[in-house]
């Protein structure tokens, strides 16, 4: 029989954490409780952070938006600030789980779970998200690309929690694209996904571009070579095919219950071809 702490605010949270440093954290429990039930994780005690409102604030600064790590995915999906500034994240959230999962799951949880199939992650990578990590007495930030090491493993120190995701406003990117391939339209773990943000001129010249693939590596995959291929070029199907070939050469995805490696490799390239939809 485990103790389940339910702190009402951050102060109470840190008290419980000090009292019980081994207790595992959960908000919605859509990953942790599932893993515990499957016997993959053992926990003697739990701390549920769903009631800590300090972790659920979405606030706007002059040049960035700060998302509390405990904010539910459903709230973020419907948030006007995200719709205005970060449509790529909205597009990703639409594909995540189901309305019920989004009601309970949080952005901090999706990051901390560090699944290569985490649907918010490719979007957060192309947005160059920074994470705020806190202990009771310290604070640091880290780019998301340096935070996740491999499936389920992050650079979170034992006393730390993720408190916020910080997204810099980047109005130059006028094209936001996200596509996820899964066995169903909802409640499907991604087989391959692609997030892309582009600065595209009216004549179709790509200025800046950022790309991130999900479910084709131990964590989110980016490709400086693909970005080089596309930067400062006119967007054409031929250009996208060249980039598709490039990413296919770079990838070594895995075979698993959802898909084979060859299919993942093929589709990872094909997803780039979808950017042809944006050719003016």
């Amino acid at each position, binding site marked *: *029989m485990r103790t*389940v702490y339910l702190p009402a605010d951050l102060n109470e949270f840190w008290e419980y954490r000090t009292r019980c440093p081994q207790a595992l954290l959960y908000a919605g429990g*859509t990953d942790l409780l*599932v893993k515990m039930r499957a016997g993959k994780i053992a926990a003697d005690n739990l701390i549920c952070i769903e009631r800590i409102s300090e972790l659920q604030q979405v606030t706007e600064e002059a040049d960035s938006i700060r998302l509390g790590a405990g904010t539910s995915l459903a709230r973020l999906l419907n948030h006007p600030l995200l719709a205005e500034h970060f449509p790529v994240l909205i597009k990703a959230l639409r594909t995540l789980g189901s309305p*019920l999962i989004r009601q*309970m799951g949080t952005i901090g949880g999706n990051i901390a779970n560090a699944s290569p199939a985490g649907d918010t992650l490719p979007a957060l990578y192309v947005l160059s998200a920074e994470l705020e990590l806190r202990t009771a007495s310290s604070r640091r930030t880290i780019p998301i690309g340096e935070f996740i090491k491999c499936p389920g493993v992050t650079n979170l120190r034992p006393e730390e929690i993720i408190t916020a995701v910080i997204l810099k406003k980047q109005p130059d990117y006028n094209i936001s694209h996200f596509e996820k391939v899964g066995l169903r339209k909802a409640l499907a773990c991604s087989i391959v996904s692609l997030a892309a943000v582009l600065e595209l001129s009216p004549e179709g010249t790509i200025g800046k571009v950022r790309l991130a693939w999900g479910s084709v590596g131990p964590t989110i995959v980016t490709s400086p070579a693909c970005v080089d291929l596309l930067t400062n070029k006119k967007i054409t199907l031929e250009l996208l095919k060249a980039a598709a070939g490039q990413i296919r050469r770079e990838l070594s995805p895995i075979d698993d219950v959802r898909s084979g490696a060859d299919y993942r490799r093929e589709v990872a390239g094909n997803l780039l071809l979808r950017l042809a939809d944006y050719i003016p």
Partner: protein
Amino acid sequence: MKITFMLNGTKKEIDTAADRRVVDVLREDLGLTGTKEGCGNGECGACTILVGDEPRLSCLMLAAQLEGTDITTVEGLSKDGAVHPLQQAFIRSGAVQCGFCTPGMLMTAFALLKKNPRPDRDAIREALSGNLCRCTGYQKIVDAVETAALSLSGKENP
């Protein structure tokens, strides 16, 4: 651990292990077997209940989280022995075959209609996308929610 919460409009006080799942507390301790467990992993929606106005998966909620909440289960939809118009619509539309998904479908649909009294079929499908049905092929479930929305809109509380 002592836990106090509102259940279908009545105050409830229970004493149970903090880490028991809400779906088990409802079914085993409180005898409310309307809420079903289909997968235990949040992937089917059969265990859907309302916490406040929001539908949530009771297989992924622990008893400790019940404290101070306002819970509605499918048993709470009917009043004074009369089924809710939403339930009536499900029956009339042929949206119930084995019935196992039905409580979860009803709770999600109920929450939807509170937020959006006139959803179109796409909005209904989207809202129900976390509730799986192996029998009906979903068409009649969508019909039922659409019909219920029409008959409920214009009334104060769905």
